[in-house]
């Protein structure tokens, strides 16, 4: 009887244990410590200094799944996020506590101007991300397309400059200009298809494929319908 009561009491306690607020320090210790060191001091050849990166940077890397990384030299890429929202926020707060840095931005793309956004994007971003944000190449890095980027993520990445991306502080791109850029990137997720199927919006490479794999193939087919094949 006593043993049964003890078991019931333990079972009753178990759910309440997970109702406790997540520990940022605990999550950091489990997921980040081995590469980034205690208090974000960084570990040589393993992980960068996190002191002063700010909530905005931390939120970007975590929300996109860029971090955690499986090996130090690997380029971060968008993958499934292992944390739920509460854990994520706790971890972000903890990393932000290492030192003062840029906060999580609050962009307002609806206040931006899509034409100004296109001009700014072409000037500052298209060299890597391609003029309609379809991604590209830089020696040493694969530049992601922005078709899945949320406005907050765009703002965070612009201010932080993740991996080998340069950063753009308020002095270079004001919040108002950033709103325009985000508005343009939103537009670029579904660019104009006035001419029909957009075939990727990257220009002549898919156009050449259509030329050969659709047009030339079809016309050679017509030639075989019109003309005879040589026998033997």
């Amino acid at each position: 009887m006593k043993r049964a009561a003890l078991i019931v009491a333990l079972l009753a306690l178990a759910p309440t244990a997970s109702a406790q607020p997540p520990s940022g320090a605990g999550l950091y210790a489990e997921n980040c410590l081995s590469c980034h060191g205690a208090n974000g001091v960084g570990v040589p050849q393993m992980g960068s200094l996190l002191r002063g990166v700010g909530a905005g940077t931390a939120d970007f890397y975590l929300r996109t799944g860029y971090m955690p990384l499986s090996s130090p030299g690997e380029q971060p890429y968008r993958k499934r996020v292992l944390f739920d929202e509460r854990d994520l926020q706790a971890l972000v707060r903890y990393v932000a506590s290492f030192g003062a840095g840029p906060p999580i931005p609050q962009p307002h793309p609806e206040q931006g101007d899509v034409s100004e956004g296109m001009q700014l994007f072409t000037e500052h971003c298209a060299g890597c991300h391609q003029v309609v944000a379809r991604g590209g190449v830089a020696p040493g890095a694969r530049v992601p397309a922005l078709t899945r980027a949320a406005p907050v993520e765009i703002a965070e990445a612009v201010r932080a400059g993740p991996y080998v991306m340069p950063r753009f502080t308020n002095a270079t791109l004001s919040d108002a200009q950033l709103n325009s850029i985000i508005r343009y990137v939103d537009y670029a997720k579904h660019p104009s298809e006035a001419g029909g199927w957009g075939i990727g919006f990257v220009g002549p490479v898919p156009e050449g494929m259509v030329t050969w794999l659709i047009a030339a193939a079809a016309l050679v087919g017509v030639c075989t319908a019109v003309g005879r094949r040589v026998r033997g």
Partner: protein
Amino acid sequence: MVGRAQQEADAVIRKLVRLVDERTASAPFLKKALRYVFPDHWSFLLGEVALYSFVLLVATGIYLTLFFDPSVATQVVYHGSYEPLRGQEMTPAYKSVVDLSLHVKAGLLIRQTHHWAADVFIAAIVLHLLRIFFTGAFRKPRDLTYYLGLTMLTFALLEGYVGYSLADDLLSGMGLAIGYSVAMSIPFVGANLAALVWGAPFPGTPAFWSRMYIAHVFIFPILIGTLLAAHLLLVALRHHTQFKRERESERTVVGIPMIPGYAPRSLGLMFAVFGVLFLLGGLVQINPVWLWGPYHVAASTNGAQPDWYLGWLIGALRLMPGFDVTVGDYTLVPNPFWGGVLVPLVVFAILFLWPWLERKATNDHGFHNLLDRPRDAPWRTAFGFALLTWVFVVFLAGSADRVYVTFGISYESQIWAYRVLVWILPLLALVVAHRVCVELQRGEEVKRLRCEVLAKRPAASRSP
């Protein structure tokens, strides 16, 4: 009523024929021409696909000239309904293309049909060239026809490049800068030539746009049209080549006469070409210049590529390791020369010289009206296939950046891999193609002998 209608039709035809003959004295010629025979094989129609694409290019092109403004001397501001461009500064040339595409009914259809037709035109020429090459149709007496065709291919490449550069959008503007660099890279005289064509160092004077415009809408079309007329005349004068079957020989051409058999087929192919091009023109977006934005000297975008038929050149430019050949303070060979000038020069030189090279190598200076099957000329097929492989590998190298973006294979390692493959794969292609031809020939020989043995026929009545 129907019988009367038929007799009326006969009478009308007779009247028409008399009308023409009385004024032109051409009845004997027309009688021959209408019964001109066309040897029948699907691969003989590839040249026609190119021809009909050219016809559509001229027709759609004339429409475009009624709207395009070839001016880059000023900047104007866009105030149309396409939001992302509103308020942006651009040249009248770019604006006229955007306006035609987005604000003129049927404008985008005609413009896209024109651009698809250009891509298909050159693809058809390439397929036609491959057919001519691998069947030996370029041999005497048709070597002149072949040279005219190669010249038309050269003009078509330049015509297409200039055509899409006229729009002054970001992608083609970058392409013009590269074209300028290739011109500059010609040893000794490159800069002088570039100064002449552009009128000043890049981006040149506004007159450069007038020059591109007149080259694209008048000079090249006249040149291509004239060469095309000569090309077709030569084909007609010497009659078309043919594969050997039963009645065909070096002296006798067998085929379907123009009337009534061949003309409907040919017209059918023409409308099929038009149909495919109009369908693409309406349904698949090509060169959406309003998405790229106008060109500025300080602007560029990742992933910029030339149209497909210049892909081999961007591949060659990217594959070259980085060096200028200098002698003291003089730059003898700037880097873009190798990929931008030497590669196309070598490829076209081989193509132009090929009839002569083959005559020297085989000691065959004779006339040929009959075609080879590729397997019948193993060395020609092997060398041709090797050259094609070389060009194709260089072409693929030009798309290495998009392969990186799509498949994740590192750009630098692709470039290094291509630098090796570009020499190894053609050698492999040479050996494999030759082997395949020889084996196919042997296979036929064995089959023939087997047939003989089975039928117990003497060797003299063996069918060719």
